[in-house]
């Protein structure tokens, strides 16, 4: 028996329990503001991890993430809004009758948001995944913009540029972080499965992978669709967090924000995406103080809006200059590393023990 294995299982369960207790405790203790930031962090972690699957693990330079988010957000919003608020909000053109009386609970609507986004992923993937590298980036970027234009113009379904509000709100840490943790567990298992190995093979050398019998197109589609699914979930969560959405939210700049998390954390490291997602969201909020007027060494410095972005950029520059691999590179956190550090002896058994 491998002693390490039992320890690791115990550690996994313990971590999950501690997290669950923390979330439960946090829900009653933390202020709404702190909860909001942490929830936003959970959403960005999902976004970062799912984009990492496509960009970092499968090596497809896709920039369509905000488009899939948009699909997920709108699906979830329309499915959960009450008929009364739909009547109130669609004042330009009434909503199409078949959508009017739908009122789903939040969780199935979130999953439906992911599914619809995945369907779009398949539709886009078929033509677009024949392209590679920059060409794929351009095609997917174009797709994200097309989605936004469609949403803007189908007024009787999406209310066009006016956007939607009165989306049911959900504030508990437990809700967002459960989705986040489940996403990470699914993605981790996916990456360590035979599909995951195929993704990485395609990333490292597409021709070699094909020669070895990996169906390149099938696996690219899989990765792309799963990425789209989780982007849709994140979009839906975003709708519930902010409770109002409009098409301008999902401009392509949003994709770059996610790409930032992926690059900073390390392309090809889920751990990196989790760390970067949390740090970026919290730091963005925490750095607000540098925009306030302050006194340093007797000098009055007026508040300069945008300062936190500057500091952020410098931090980013350091990481990019000296850590071209990102914070984690392609490494992942695992208990072995921690146990080794703690000096626990490793059972190096070989063969049958």
């Amino acid at each position: 028996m491998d002693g390490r294995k039992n320890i690791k299982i115990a550690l996994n369960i313990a971590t999950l329990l501690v997290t669950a207790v923390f979330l439960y405790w946090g829900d009653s203790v933390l202020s709404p503001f702190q909860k909001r930031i942490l929830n936003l962090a959970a959403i960005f972690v999902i976004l970062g991890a799912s984009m990492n699957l496509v960009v970092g693990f499968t090596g497809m330079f896709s920039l369509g993430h905000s488009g899939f988010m948009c699909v997920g957000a709108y699906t979830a919003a329309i499915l959960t809004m009450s008929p009364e608020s739909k009547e109130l909000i669609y004042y330009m053109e009434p909503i199409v009758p078949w959508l009017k009386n739908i009122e789903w609970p939040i969780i199935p609507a979130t999953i439906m948001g992911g599914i619809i986004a995945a369907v779009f992923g398949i539709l886009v993937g078929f033509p677009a995944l024949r392209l590679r590298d920059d060409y794929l980036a351009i095609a997917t970027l174009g797709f994200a913009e097309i989605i936004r234009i469609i949403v803007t113009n189908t007024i009787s379904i999406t209310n066009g540029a006016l956007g939607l509000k009165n989306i049911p709100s959900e504030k508990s840490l437990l809700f967002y972080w459960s989705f986040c943790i489940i996403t990470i567990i699914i993605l981790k298992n996916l990456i360590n499965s035979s599909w995951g190995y195929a993704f990485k093979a395609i990333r490292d050398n597409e021709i070699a992978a094909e020669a070895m019998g990996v169906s390149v197109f099938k696996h690219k589609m899989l990765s792309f669709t799963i990425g789209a699914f989780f982007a849709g979930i994140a979009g839906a969560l975003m709708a519930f967090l902010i409770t109002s959405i409009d098409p301008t939210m999902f401009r392509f700049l949003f994709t770059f924000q996610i790409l930032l998390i992926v690059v900073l954390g390390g392309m090809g490291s889920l751990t990196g995406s989790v760390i970067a997602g949390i740090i970026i969201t919290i730091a963005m909020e925490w750095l607000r103080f540098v925009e306030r007027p302050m006194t340093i060494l007797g000098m009055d410095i007026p508040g300069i809006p945008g300062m936190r972005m500057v500091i952020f950029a410098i931090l980013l520059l350091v990481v990019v200059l000296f850590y071209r691999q990102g914070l984690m590179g392609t490494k992942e956190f695992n208990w072995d590393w921690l146990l080794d550090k703690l000096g626990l002896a490793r059972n190096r058994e070989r063969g049958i023990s």
Partner: protein
Amino acid sequence: MKVRKFLALMAAVLLAAVALVGCGGGGEKASSEDAAKDSDVIKIGVYEPLTGINAAGGEMTLDGIELANKLYPEVLGKKVELVVADNKSEKQEAANAVARLVNEGVDVIIGSYGSSLSMAGGPVAEEAGVPVIGCSPTNPLVTKGNDYYFRVCFIDPFQGTVMANYAVNTLGAKTAAIIQDVQQDYSVGLSKYFEESFKELTGDENAIVAKVNYNTGDKDFSAQLTEVKDKNPDVIFAPGNFTECGILVERARELGIKAPILGGDTWEAKEFLNRVGDLEDIYFSTHFTAEEPVTEVSETFLNEFKKEYPDKQVNAFAALGFDSYLLALDAIERAGSTDHEKIKEELAKTSGFKGATGIITLDENGDATKTAIIKKVEDGKFVYEAKVDPQN
């Protein structure tokens, strides 16, 4: 290798510091909130887009708010402190900013330029029970169904109606064409209400001869304008961003379209004027004019603004920011305390409040009913043209 290790350590320390202070910040804030309750400071929160695509509008508004704060720094014998939060022109940041302001214990919030940003911030404030005064979000949905959101500007329906009135009654138009930016809620909203009241006023179901669309960021409007030209309308209504509309108006005149072109309050910008300054028959509605001070407060505002910002042009957004602040102070004074519920109730009762942009009365939705100003472009300047009261 040593250098690398050192840098690795540095970065790790930096990031750890960020994470730690980020978490620790929460505790500090809670204590500062308690302190605020006891001290002699009344905090007014401001969330405006100070960076990002809407930064220009946010900055103009903030100018007005800061000016007002400088002139009237006290209420109920306590000092008023402005707490400014940038919302980066992004929805999730707007919601964060409001949550942060609430966390810092502000009593009233002012903001934000841009309706979609206001709609993101609204629910957060409503839930916390902190009243918000909007300076320039004109989308009706901002205040609808939110008891804690008020505003000092008029809303899209009113602005659209005003322009239709002006087109029919003053310009004598029988037909009109609409050119709208489908990506801007503002543009679509104004067009909708212009269309409705124009049809009603002319009594002609087919009075709108053309309705064409474009998208934010477009630079070529030849197709749309050719279509409009073929229909030969008496007026053209083209609400939208000043950048696109500047090009659009210029191109229309180049194509030989002589009909007056009408727009909304967003046109009051230098960039727009630079393009269309020497053209004729360009009218738009706005909230404020420097030429025809509506109340005595307008005069104070004008004089002080010129003193405070000698190199800036007086604009409607600054005036609206000024008014939001004054209204907040007024409501706190009427409430006699900083109890949020009381302030909210007093705000809802606001009637005949004299602001720089006119006399403001809030209706049951919390929207201001007030006089609109119509300006036109003449010799490279915006010139006061007419005043339209909400009754007609």
